[in-house]
């Protein structure tokens, strides 16, 4: 039967070399060794622990195996009774052992020899598997360490960029840079730090604390309502809020909530911790900048024409934008574009002070001719615009245009003289898909046509004006 044990050993060897780790090698060893000798109990032990065992159920007391005397050839396991025992060292050094116990008869010399061979094979396999496992563990640790270092580096770099940006804004604030520019640098800075987001600073409008305006915006030029909504949430909570792809913090002037700083992403993001840092830092920066400007009047100043007190082009555009979003039905709002005739002559003959006074007078008459829901703005030079909204029909726009023309046509008393001017008015109406620029350009084209045909009259825009002979840019 010498062949039998040798073949058992071969079988054992081929099974053990297929094991991928120490635990499965030990498990295979106790199974194969016990099955080939029909031993009811088997274990692999080492370092006072049981690597694997069969025959005594799950998790037997390790002492049952580790406590066996090295020279014992019988033992009694609880519940099983007396058994013949054989124990084989896994290698020359170390205390690892393959232990088998059988009830019916002692292990033969041939079996012991075979089991010794199995123990040595197992010892070799365990040693190489332990080396392999150590190397795997080391490699894993090295990889984790490298990854952690890279992550830390990225975080440090990012923090550095954040600080640089804040420092730049701080410097700008200290150098008496106009508030509008500082606010732009805050939203620009935050937007650059976070990829693919829109950032906005939303502030209360002076004189109407309930009304919020986007004072500065970087990123996608749409979705004002969403940004204002997020800011309002943060302002009401007076603490940071998140809402899906939106996050906002309140901005303060002194103790009062003056607005909100908003970040809008495409979707909920894993970069939320960065968002939180940016919101906190830039919200604070915005509060500082606003405090530096002392009052909301400065914000107002940033959005209004200092000469006439009317909203400037930027604020007007925001209102038109909001109107376009809120009024999808065509001709439910109108835009009037005004140009003063003879303004240049007033400036040239009476001087700039008189010119300025005339502009202020026109602004006053304009405001007086409008309903409270309408909005007049000075776009620059002698050009004004009016947003007429809501609109019951084109007749209403025509009436208001005529009223404006009539008001402006009444003589102004300037520096003791009566000065007369006329307003030419172009009218455009909102329609689906209109942009702010298109609406303004159409009213401008219509105004130009009015001025060329009958000065001091109004004209409504029609498509032919785009291709008409009086080319606008030649003006």
């Amino acid at each position, binding site marked *: 039967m010498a062949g039998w044990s040798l073949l058992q050993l071969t*079988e054992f060897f*081929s099974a053990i070399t297929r094991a991928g780790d120490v635990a499965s090698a030990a498990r295979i060893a106790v199974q194969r060794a016990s099955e080939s000798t*029909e031993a009811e*109990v088997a274990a692999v032990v080492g370092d006072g622990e049981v690597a694997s065992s069969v*025959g005594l159920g799950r998790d*037997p007391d390790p002492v049952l195996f580790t406590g066996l005397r090295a020279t014992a050839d019988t033992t009694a396991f609880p519940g099983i009774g007396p058994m013949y025992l054989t124990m084989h060292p896994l290698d020359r050094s170390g205390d690892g052992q393959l232990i088998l116990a059988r009830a019916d008869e002692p292990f033969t010399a041939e079996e012991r020899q075979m089991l010794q061979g199995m123990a040595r094979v197992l010892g070799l396999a365990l040693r190489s598997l332990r080396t392999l496992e150590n190397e795997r563990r080391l490699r894993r640790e090295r990889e984790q360490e490298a990854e952690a270092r890279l992550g830390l580096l990225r975080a440090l770099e990012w923090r550095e960029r954040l600080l640089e940006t804040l420092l730049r804004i701080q410097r700008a604030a200290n150098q008496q840079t106009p508030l509008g520019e500082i606010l732009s640098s805050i939203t620009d800075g935050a937007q650059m730090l976070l990829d693919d987001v829109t950032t906005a600073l939303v502030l209360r409008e002076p004189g109407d604390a309930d009304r919020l305006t986007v004072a500065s915006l970087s990123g996608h030029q749409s979705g004002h309502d969403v940004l204002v909504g997020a800011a309002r949430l943060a302002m009401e909570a007076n603490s940071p809020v998140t809402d899906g792809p939106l996050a906002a913090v309140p901005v303060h002037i002194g103790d009062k909530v003056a607005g909100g700083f908003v970040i809008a992403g495409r979707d909920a993001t894993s970069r939320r911790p960065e968002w939180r840092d940016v919101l906190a830092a830039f919200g604070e920066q915005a509060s500082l900048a606003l405090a530096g400007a002392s009052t909301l009047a400065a914000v107002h100043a940033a959005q209004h024409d200092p000469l006439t007190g009317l909203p400037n082009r930027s604020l007007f555009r925001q209102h038109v934008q909001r109107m376009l979003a809120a009024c999808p039905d065509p001709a439910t709002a109108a835009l009037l574009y005004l140009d003063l005739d003879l303004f240049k002559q007033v400036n040239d003959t009476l001087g700039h002070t008189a010119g300025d006074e005339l502009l202020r007078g026109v602004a006053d008459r304009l405001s007086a001719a409008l309903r409270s829901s309408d909005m007049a703005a000075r776009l620059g030079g002698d050009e004004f615009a009016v947003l007429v909204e809501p609109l019951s029909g084109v007749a209403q726009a025509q009436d208001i245009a005529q009223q404006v023309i009539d008001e402006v046509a009444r003589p102004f008393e300037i520096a003791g003289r009566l000065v007369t001017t006329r307003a030419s008015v172009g009218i455009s109406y909102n329609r689906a898909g209109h942009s702010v620029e298109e609406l303004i350009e159409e009213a401008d084209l219509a105004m130009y046509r009015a001025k060329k045909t009958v000065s001091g009259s109004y004209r409504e825009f029609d498509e032919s004006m785009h291709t008409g002979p009086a080319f606008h840019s030649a003006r």
Partner: protein
Amino acid sequence: MLCLIGRARRRKGVVVDERQERWFGVGNSVLPDPAQAGAQACYAALDGRPATLLIVFASPSHSTPEMAAAVHAAAGGEVLMIGCSTSGEYATDGRGAGVVVNALGGPGFAASVRAVPYESMDLYAAGATAASCLDDIDAEHRAVLLLGDGRSADQQEMVRGAYSVAGAQVPLIGGCAGDDMTQTGTWHFFSSGTDVQVLPNAVLGAALGSASPVGIGVAHGWHRSGEPMAVTRSEGGKIYELDGEPALDVYTRLTGCPPEIVADPGAFLQFAAVRPLGLARRTGEDIRIIFAADPDERSISGLADTPEGGLVWFMEADPEALRDAAATAGSAAVAAVGDADPLGVLVFDCCVRLLALGPDGTDLAGRRLGDALRPIPYGGFFSNGEIARNPGAKGMHHLTVVALAVS
């Protein structure tokens, strides 16, 4: 980890059996309607007594959810149940395609069950989980009943897993579900109390606790023939070379298998199934059923792993010993309970023995089993692999009969 658990409970409102004795009952039915057959078999097995555990064997034709529900309901609707499809089942009254219900109960019996659905874990883990029902049972005598999936690749792994939990103190016994040898799929019937499940290709375990001994018997009736041969090249169950020669050449020469049978897979299965190999063991051999040949590779395939380096013999059947195997296993199981009063026997009988014995031989074997056990009731089925793990038995068997006696 997915497994289902149940433990025996005393049912509310049930009158305790007045005889105050442990009992084992078997009922069988060959009614064509599966549910009616199930109910009839269950009523016969219980005879009005409250059961601790039901063990159900049903032919594939009767392995329906309705049958499982009817058996469970007939036992009162709140009882532990394990069971499986078969390649034929038998009871004290004879054999036939239908339903056999084995039931046991009475003071001193305790049971707990587990089910592991198909492919929810590897077979080793499935065996360990199925046997973990032992955790619930504290009794002087214990055994784990295993009903495996007859089609799974390495059933020995399932037994190894179960043994890792049960250990040497608790015998493992059972069989793998059958499908009339069609290889189409097996079914298991399971209840951990109220719900009844029919699971495809599952592994079930039931821990049985008893105040009195349980006995196990194993027999097959095969013996070695000729000289041993070394398996010089093999992979899993496929044997390429014996003693350095193509395995199919050796096999056909020694068995006299004609070439036209080698060329016909169906005919080869019939021929080879009753001409197995035996893998050398210290005290005997493990039978390896050969079921396929590859004329191109000149290889043969066995139902279980035949490791390279192993020693094998051709096995021959002594017709008498073959016919007596069931009776021998049953008697050995009864003898193993010693002086205790044997109450009943469960028999797991290899389905390939149906081919080896033929219909008449099978009937004769059944009569001899009945004669050997009378008046002890018994129920059994033809299985795709037999399980017996106790001192002197490795675990997974083939072409073998294993039996469990309770007392």
